[in-house]
């Protein structure tokens, strides 16, 4: 029987992390060189962790499915990274950042973790600047800040609309330095297929070399997953097409509990779906909402061109509904409001599934040059894809699947329920509760990678110094490798008619319709049946080209889709069991009279951590009750 222990240190909130740092066990430098750490995923958090762990002297084996760590989808984060520097003298502080994240997450995150994330945010900015990340600056030469959705201070550091790219390249350069120093060995173009557990401890992984098709064994004293999120469950999402849940899912099947799987953020400002061929929805940074105004026509089905619709016929619905925050309400609120207007028939565009994001007033007030300076590359990107020039006509946007707040359950040390198996960054569930605030993911990812994991992992590894290098000949490696090979054989043996992508697209549609922005019991139950049927069809009719020992992109996709079925079922189960609305999880049965999300703290103030019980069995719920000692639980209002 698994017992959840978050291992939150004693003491006042503000001192927990520093006390914990003082008390964790240390590994002496000579012993660090004898310890191997496997790190899967080298996006922002993975690269940052690899560089820090390498600097400390551990041997790191780092894996990614791309050809280079620089390609990870952290690269696509646009708007910025938060830190409580209070460079703007606007009353910001670590506590306020902590409070904003807790409130933004609709009180479904762990206080101690969130406070720590806010605390290390300042160090993170220092580190990134030292690594040569060219953040935007004022004429004085000091760093510039902007404000971002869901908060009332300016604490977001940014590098035009490419902050994620610049942060990732910064962390990647640190990783490169450790590769040169011989402390990190990089294994690119590898898919992680399974985790190897020996005597209850994570000791290795099984990978497929995506170029040669070889199945490989790698061992280590600890395994760290930094494998990102699974927003691609919706097929159409803002994520990279390669983003997947497979590594986290393999960990889950081997005993790591999966927390809040149905908490997926739907980002309000993405390009709308234009046609049926589309393979992804491009994100337009939330920062656009600082200057853009969101509206739909007041008249249902108004077919006039946007610039021909006069002010009095425009409904700036966010400003109308949420006068205090206006266009800057948190993402979940903005997304649902857009869906509400479109469902009510006020949507624009060919499909009626989009709303306007208008810069006319901002350009009039600040000048085209100022707007171009802030958003130039985003405007260009929009222009390229849609063919419309956003300097002249309003952008059309619609919500899209984006970020997974849910993920592998971890304790304060970022360890999962499997000993020696860690999860960092988007792959874990820890900091964002039921909804992530803008510019929070880069903050969490780099903080955990640079400053948190490298310290907390020592606490475990200090107990492993007597364990010699793990041999990959251990029978557990045999078993795991055979299972991985069998899965590949099974996929190839189906030899049906439909491509893996066809199934992915169909699965995505089911999940988007019934387990997306708005959920209800009837829909979720229906989705559970549909997903099960689709999964059965998949195993009867999927077509995987039979070239095992070679680069085989269809096989990669098929393996990932097979795992998506698992997480889809778990998401539905999780969404069904949480009969309240909170953050991104909106249950129609639980709303206020004016249509806002209604939390039920008396029953659901917990983290739902699910234990795997078999492929076709419902999973077992474990609750980690959330204690709020430093903030008062209240209705999240942005009015």
């Amino acid at each position, binding site marked *: 029987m698994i017992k959840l222990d978050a291992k939150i240190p004693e003491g006042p909130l503000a001192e927990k992390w520093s006390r914990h740092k003082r008390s964790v066990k240390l590994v002496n430098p000579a012993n660090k060189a004898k310890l191997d750490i496997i790190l899967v995923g080298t996006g922002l958090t993975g690269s940052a962790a690899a560089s820090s762990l390498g600097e400390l002297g551990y041997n790191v084996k780092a894996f990614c499915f791309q050809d280079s760590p*620089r*390609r990870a989808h952290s690269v696509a984060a646009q708007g910025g990274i938060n830190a409580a520097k209070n460079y703007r003298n606007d009353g910001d502080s670590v506590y306020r950042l902590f409070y904003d994240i807790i409130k933004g997450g609709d009180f479904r995150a762990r206080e101690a973790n969130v406070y720590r994330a806010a605390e290390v945010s300042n160090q993170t900015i220092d580190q990134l600047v*030292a690594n040569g990340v*060219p953040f935007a600056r004022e004429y004085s*030469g000091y760093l510039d800040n902007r404000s971002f959705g869901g908060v009332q201070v300016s604490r977001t550091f940014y590098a035009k609309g490419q902050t994620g790219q610049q942060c990732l390249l910064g962390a990647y350069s640190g990783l490169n330095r450790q590769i040169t120093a011989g402390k990190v060995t990089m294994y690119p173009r590898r898919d992680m297929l399974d985790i190897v557990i020996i005597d209850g401890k994570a000791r290795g992984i099984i990978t497929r070399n995506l170029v040669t098709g070889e199945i490989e064994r790698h061992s280590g004293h600890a395994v760290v997953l930094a494998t990102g999120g699974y927003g691609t469950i919706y097929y159409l999402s803002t994520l990279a*097409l390669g983003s997947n849940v497979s590594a986290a899912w393999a960990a889950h099947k081997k005993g790591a509990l999966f927390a809040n799987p149905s908490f997926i953020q739907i980002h309000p400002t993405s390009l709308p779906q234009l046609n049926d*061929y589309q393979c992804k929805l491009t994100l337009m940074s939330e920062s656009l909402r600082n200057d853009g105004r969101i509206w739909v026509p007041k008249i249902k089905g108004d077919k006039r061109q946007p610039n021909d619709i006069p002010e009095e016929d425009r409904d700036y619905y966010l400003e109308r509904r949420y006068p205090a925050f206006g266009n800057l309400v948190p993402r979940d609120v903005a997304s649902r409001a857009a869906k509400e207007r479109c469902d009510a028939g006020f949507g624009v565009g060919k499909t009626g599934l989009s709303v306007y994001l208008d810069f006319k007033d901002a350009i009039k007030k600040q000048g085209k040059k100022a707007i171009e300076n802030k958003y130039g590359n985003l405007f260009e990107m929009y222009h390229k894809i849609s063919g419309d020039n956003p300097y002249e006509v309003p952008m059309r946007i619609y919500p899209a699947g984006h970020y997974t707040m849910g993920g592998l359950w971890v304790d304060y040390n970022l360890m999962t329920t499997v000993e020696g198996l860690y999860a960092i960054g988007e792959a874990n569930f820890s900091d964002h509760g039921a909804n992530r605030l803008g510019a929070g993911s880069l903050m969490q990812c780099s903080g955990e990678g640079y400053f948190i994991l490298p310290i907390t992992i020592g606490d475990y590894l200090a107990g492993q110094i007597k364990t010699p290098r793990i041999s990959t000949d251990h029978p557990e490696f045999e078993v795991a490798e055979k299972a991985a090979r069998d899965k590949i054989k099974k996929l190839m043996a189906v030899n049906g008619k439909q491509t893996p*992508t066809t199934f992915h697209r169909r699965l995505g549609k089911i999940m988007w319709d019934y387990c997306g922005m708005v959920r209800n019991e009837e829909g979720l139950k229906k989705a559970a049946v549909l997903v099960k049927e689709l999964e059965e069809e998949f195993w009867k009719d999927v077509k995987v*080209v039979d070239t095992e020992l*070679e680069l085989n992109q269809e096989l990669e996709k098929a393996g990932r889709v097979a795992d998506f079925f698992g997480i889809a079922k778990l998401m539905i189960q999780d969404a069904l069991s949480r009969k309240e609305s909170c953050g991104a999880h909106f249950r129609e049965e639980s709303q206020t009279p004016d249509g806002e999300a209604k939390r039920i703290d008396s029953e659901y103030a917990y983290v739902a951590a699910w234990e795997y019980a078999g492929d076709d069995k419902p999973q077992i719920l474990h609750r980690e009750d959330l204690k709020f000692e430093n903030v008062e639980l209240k209705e999240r209002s942005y009015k």
Partner: protein
Amino acid sequence: MNITLEIWRQKNARSKGKFVTYKLDGVSEEMSFLEMLDYFNKTIVEKGGEPVAFEYDCREGICGCCGLHINGYAHGGAHETTTCELRMTKFKDGDKITIEPWRSRAFPVIKDLIVDRSAFDKILRAGGFITANAGAAPDANAIPIRKVDADEAFDSAVCVGCGACVAACKNSSAMLFVSAKISQFAFLPQGRVEAVQRVQKMVARMDELGFGNCTNTGACEARCPKGIKLTNIARMNREFIGAKLGSQIVRH
């Protein structure tokens, strides 16, 4: 619309490749170029054939994975556009589209249209970093950086490492890529500390990897999807001359 595709097919790094011509019906001009290839692959797989391997990930022009030589141009030749951002509106019914992988000795073909660009990573590992351990950094505002310098550093730092500069250069030179990283750090006080060693190490590594030499033709700049400027190469040359002339002989 109906189009003809002429695509380089190569089973793996060891085998010899060849061009194969395919007819493709039912292409919509609403597709992106890669969505057209997705659609093409779907038709092949459903007929039991082997799909064309090509690299992609973000599909929004920022990860740098995609890179095809389309009708004679890296990324298809549209201004500051990656292959994934290219739309089928650029083509018309009856067009023949020739798709080739990047061609360079330093970028060997892995399969079909996928090449191995790890040479870029190797160059960066030679010195494309600042030696700053986590925890050692001073406050982020401790060193002011002129806005113009920060902006210039940013403009050089937006390189996505797609390799179009190498693919477009008649000499397969990687100098635009290398100089962009050198320039980024040259503009920042944090990067200046190691500038002398950095430029020499990175240039030496670039030379070892079999890239060609720069003849200042400017094809790289013209094809760069991120608008990296040729001035970066001049800056690298300047840094290099300064490093060679100014550095002291190290005696052990």
